[in-house]
């Protein structure tokens, strides 16, 4: 797979923002999916480079169990994994060809009131891994943990996935 970031004329303005708790899938090769500023949240990508299908979920919380009322599937790790799989396969992705990558799960606040927030980032990453395991899917690459915010992006045309921290250049994962 070749990295073609330099020749990609698209800017952030052209890309599809995947907001908190949202789940988006596309079969348009021109689409770029991006989750801006992931903190304790996880950006999860499933993509099929052959079928040119890419999907992204912006997971906020580990599990839907404690939640009352109707569920927004992208919001929780346990519901986002099967929902994202269904969304990309519906657009023609083959589950055996899927590349699965994630980023996020940070502890953004170091101390004090942040202690609870720390827990969510770590637990989100574990919950996504668990849910993938349950679905019989294997993670291809991940950049999680630490205390930095990250922006996660996939260019559907190339299936290139990049992660960028504040003030840094995008790095391919």
């Amino acid at each position, binding site marked *: 797979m070749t990295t073609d970031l330099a020749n990609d004329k698209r800017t952030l303005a052209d890309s599809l923002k995947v907001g908190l708790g949202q789940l988006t899938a596309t079969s348009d090769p021109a689409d770029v999916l991006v989750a801006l500023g*992931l903190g304790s949240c996880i950006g999860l990508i499933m993509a099929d480079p052959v079928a040119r299908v890419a999907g992204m979920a912006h997971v906020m919380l580990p599990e839907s169990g*404690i939640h009352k009322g109707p569920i927004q599937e992208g919001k929780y790790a346990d519901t986002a994994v099967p929902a994202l799989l269904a*969304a990309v396969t519906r657009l023609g992705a083959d589950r055996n060809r899927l590349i699965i990558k994630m980023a996020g799960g940070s502890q953004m606040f170091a101390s004090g009131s942040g*202690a609870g927030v720390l827990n969510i980032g770590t637990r989100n990453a574990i919950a996504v891994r668990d849910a993938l395991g349950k679905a019989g899917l294997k993670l291809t690459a991940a950049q999680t943990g630490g205390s*930095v*915010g990250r922006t996660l992006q996939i260019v559907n045309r190339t299936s290139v996935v990049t992660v960028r921290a504040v*003030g840094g250049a995008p790095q391919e994962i």
Partner: protein
Amino acid sequence: MSEMNEANDQTAATAAISLDALDAIQLDALREVGNIGAGTAAASLSAMTGERVAMGVPSVKIIPIERVPDQVGGDEALVVAVYLQVIGDAPGHIVFILQADMARELCDTLMGGMDPGEPGPTGFSEMQISALQEIGNIMTGSYLRALADLTRLHLEPMPPALGIDMAAALISSVVAEVARTVDLALIIETQFEDEETPSIGYFAFIPEPDSLGVVLKGLGLIA
């Protein structure tokens, strides 16, 4: 072709008081809470810097919790955020956000031209970070005290936590904390401004759903 799974706006929080049921008088009172809280904090900031800090008109918004980062804006912009968990009679969350440039100016003013030392990965030195932590403590502390005085409630701060990073990363982490139990957030927000800059900072108070009734009762708006 793309498929969007949009935020579900219909889900209401299970609470003693439904956010949808707030009337104009109650919303006004909550706006006043933001006004007095942020006004007190702005006065503290002015006292620290010796410069006049003005406040915009506070607004009260009831929005799906997922939309909070969009409201604050900035996405990847570098900001300094102070997050304070409130415990006691009416648990909630206070977030104070400063634009990075403004934070740097504040540090300079407070440190009176002292060499701040080597900047770390966030662009702020250790000395600047502890100055910002102190500013955050004072700002959020005065906000909370005003809130407690106004409502005659017992409200206690957990130690404030400081984060310097992308705006969305910091806000969404606070939102995730709240979203465990809440679908709709009530935010009382106030912008700070000085003579040159229309928006230098931002204050938000997000009460836990069960706290809303307690706050309104404290304000004498429900029996």
